[in-house]
């Protein structure tokens, strides 16, 4: 009997542990003016925010559901609870977080990582933050890292109001409008001019409630010459009803500042992940995106960067792993709006067991952006013949004085390469795993260490089956 081998899916055992929704406050399912008003009341919004929500809701109702990507038919807003508040208040001490919730984050390794390698942590559970803490020495540098709700009412209220959904407007698309109406949770970060935060901050979004939505808002502002690495992690246990994630990330990178934004997304396969991320970069600033997409049933995710100032740069490094029942539509968009700006996108996607992964890139170069450079390189690996992989590049170049490159490769594991490795005594499953992790290597080594290790582990998690 000959053994057939395959690369295992992401091991979800840690993520799949569900907690009961004991004592949580859950807003009625569906979407109406009454529901949004109720949500605003629960969150004790300032008046402008309440009006903003209602206006966004009106926009939401006017806009059409996107029909150019993976199907969203299974998503019915009438069966989504937009707000589920855990039965606890936000604290800066893990010991004060309810045991069940704390255990969840411990399994995910968050408090451990915080002690070892993070400058601050925010932990969101369903719709609200349950923990937020930043190291004293970072606080003393003048860095603000807090939940959005506190930011909205505190010392930085004006700054929040000035930036909130200005980069991603509710009119952008239907789910941006939805976000504007029902957003809750997320983090606010402010790094003053000249301050370097030497170790990363991390926000982790855990989604436990079935049939609900998570709509966290992340707003990061870096002043001139500031430097920050921000890590965002997300996961959820699987349910057999649809869940929705429509977060929004707005990043403001000041002159000569550098922001690295790493995301590891491990949603369960009942999740519709319709997330919007955008950055604007001033002169000489640098935006680095690192993105690992492993979970969700359907994803629409295309972080966008506007290179607004001269010599602004962006790099996008992404990896997508689509398994059975997953349709992951990811990519990146860059707008070169000033001279001598540069962008580089480097992505890998792996699909198996009928999974679909699509990579869309959009490069826009304005007439003013003379002397700009853009390079896109995307590679896909399909592990079997049922799986699909596509790349869809789009370019709009308005000056001749720009250097634009695009390279795409789609392939399968070569039988000859497997044989070559086996001829050195390496088993077939190990040979395949080596080839797949080698394929992912250039990108996975950009991930934060613990996530890179986890990714290697999931690729090595091979199983033997038989074809008798």
């Amino acid at each position, binding site marked *: 009997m000959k053994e057939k081998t395959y690369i295992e899916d992401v091991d979800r055992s840690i993520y799949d542990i569900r907690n009961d929704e004991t004592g949580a406050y859950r807003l009625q399912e569906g979407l109406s003016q009454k529901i949004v008003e109720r949500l605003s009341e629960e969150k004790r919004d300032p008046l402008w925010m309440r009006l903003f929500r209602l206006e966004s809701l009106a926009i939401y109702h006017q806009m059409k559901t996107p029909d150019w990507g993976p199907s969203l038919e299974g998503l019915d807003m009438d069966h989504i609870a937009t707000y589920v508040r855990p039965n606890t208040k936000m604290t800066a001490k893990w010991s004060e977080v309810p045991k069940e919730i704390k255990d969840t984050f411990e399994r995910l390794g968050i408090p451990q990582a915080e002690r070892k390698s993070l400058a601050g942590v925010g932990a969101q559970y369903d719709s609200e933050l349950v923990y937020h803490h930043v190291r004293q020495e970072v606080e003393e540098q003048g860095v603000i890292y807090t939940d959005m709700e506190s930011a909205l009412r505190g010392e930085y209220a004006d700054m929040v109001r000035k930036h909130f959904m200005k980069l991603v407007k509710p009119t952008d698309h239907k789910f941006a409008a939805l976000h504007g109406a029902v957003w809750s949770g997320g983090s606010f970060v402010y790094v003053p001019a000249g301050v370097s935060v030497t170790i990363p901050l991390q926000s982790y979004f855990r989604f436990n409630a079935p049939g609900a939505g998570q709509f966290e808002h992340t707003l990061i502002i870096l002043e001139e010459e500031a430097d920050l690495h921000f890590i965002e992690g997300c996961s959820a246990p699987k349910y057999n009803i649809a869940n929705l994630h429509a977060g929004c990330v707005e990043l403001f990178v000041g002159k000569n500042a550098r922001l690295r934004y790493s995301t590891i997304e491990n949603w369960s396969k009942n999740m519709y992940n319709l997330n919007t991320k955008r950055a604007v970069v001033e002169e000489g600033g640098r935006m680095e995106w690192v993105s690992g997409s492993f979970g969700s049933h359907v994803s629409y995710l295309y972080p966008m960067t506007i290179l607004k100032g001269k010599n602004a740069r962006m790099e996008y490094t992404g990896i997508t792993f689509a398994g059975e029942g997953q349709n992951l539509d990811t990519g990146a968009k860059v707008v070169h709006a000033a001279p001598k700006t540069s962008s580089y996108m480097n992505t890998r996607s792996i699909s198996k067991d009928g999974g679909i992964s699509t990579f869309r890139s959009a490069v826009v170069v304005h007439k003013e952006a003379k002397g700009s450079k853009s390079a896109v390189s995307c590679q896909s690996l399909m592990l079997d013949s049922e799986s699909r992989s596509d790349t869809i590049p789009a370019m709009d170049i308005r000056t001749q004085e720009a250097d634009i490159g695009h390279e795409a490769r789609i392939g399968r594991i070569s*039988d000859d390469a497997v*044989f070559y490795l086996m001829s050195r005594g390496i088993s077939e499953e190990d040979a395949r795993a080596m080839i797949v992790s080698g394929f992912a290597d250039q990108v996975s080594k950009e991930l934060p260490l613990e996530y890179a290790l986890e990714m290697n582990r999931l690729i090595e998690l091979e199983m033997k089956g038989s074809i008798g």
Partner: protein
Amino acid sequence: MDRHLLDIQNLSVQVEEKEILHHISLQIQKGETHVLMGPNGAGKSTLGYTLMGHPRYQVTEGQIWLAGERIDEEGADARARAGLFLSFQNPLEVPGVTLSSFLRNAWRHRQGGKLKVWAFQKELERVMSILQMEEAYGERELNVGFSGGEKKKAEILQMLMLKPSLAILDETDSGLDVDAVRTVSKGVEEFQKDRSKGLLIITHNAQILESLQVDYTHVMVEGRIVKTGGGELVEEISRTGFEPYIRQT
């Protein structure tokens, strides 16, 4: 009775329904070096791939034995663990996997799952110095961007590290400059020092053989071994070419 190290018995092989090798028999004893020569397309590389167990090459008749074990139904990995090695004519590129991590992995499989890091590292340094390879070589991705000579050196490096009992070198000398041939020959000599090992060198020219001791020479034409002789046959072929043997068939 002393067992043959490699015993090929009446082997016929087909690729995609077409028979390429017909009734090949060949025995190699410990300490022997055999050379398999023949014109292009004679089936020499087919024999190498078949011995190593490439799934595209189907054995339709005959058997292959290595040190008393029948291996023709085993996978390539099991054959390698049993002591067989094939140096590829065109080694494959494996992006993202460094030469040294690949070697560590293969070494571990060869040693039954154990890896003594220190012993491995010492041996790697020793072998690399024989092959005049810089240490930094180990950190390069396996065969990616390697020149022809570097690829062949990396193959010989693997052979010396994994210490097979029988190694097959498939056109290891092709496309190399004089210096590279000399380095590769040095590596092969190092392998020959151990008298418990056997070597089958597949080649269509005699360059690499000048400095090596050869015990037997086989000439293959159109999938058959048409002549077997001693080391002196190599010289004869360098003079006459394969013409006389082609006419013979």
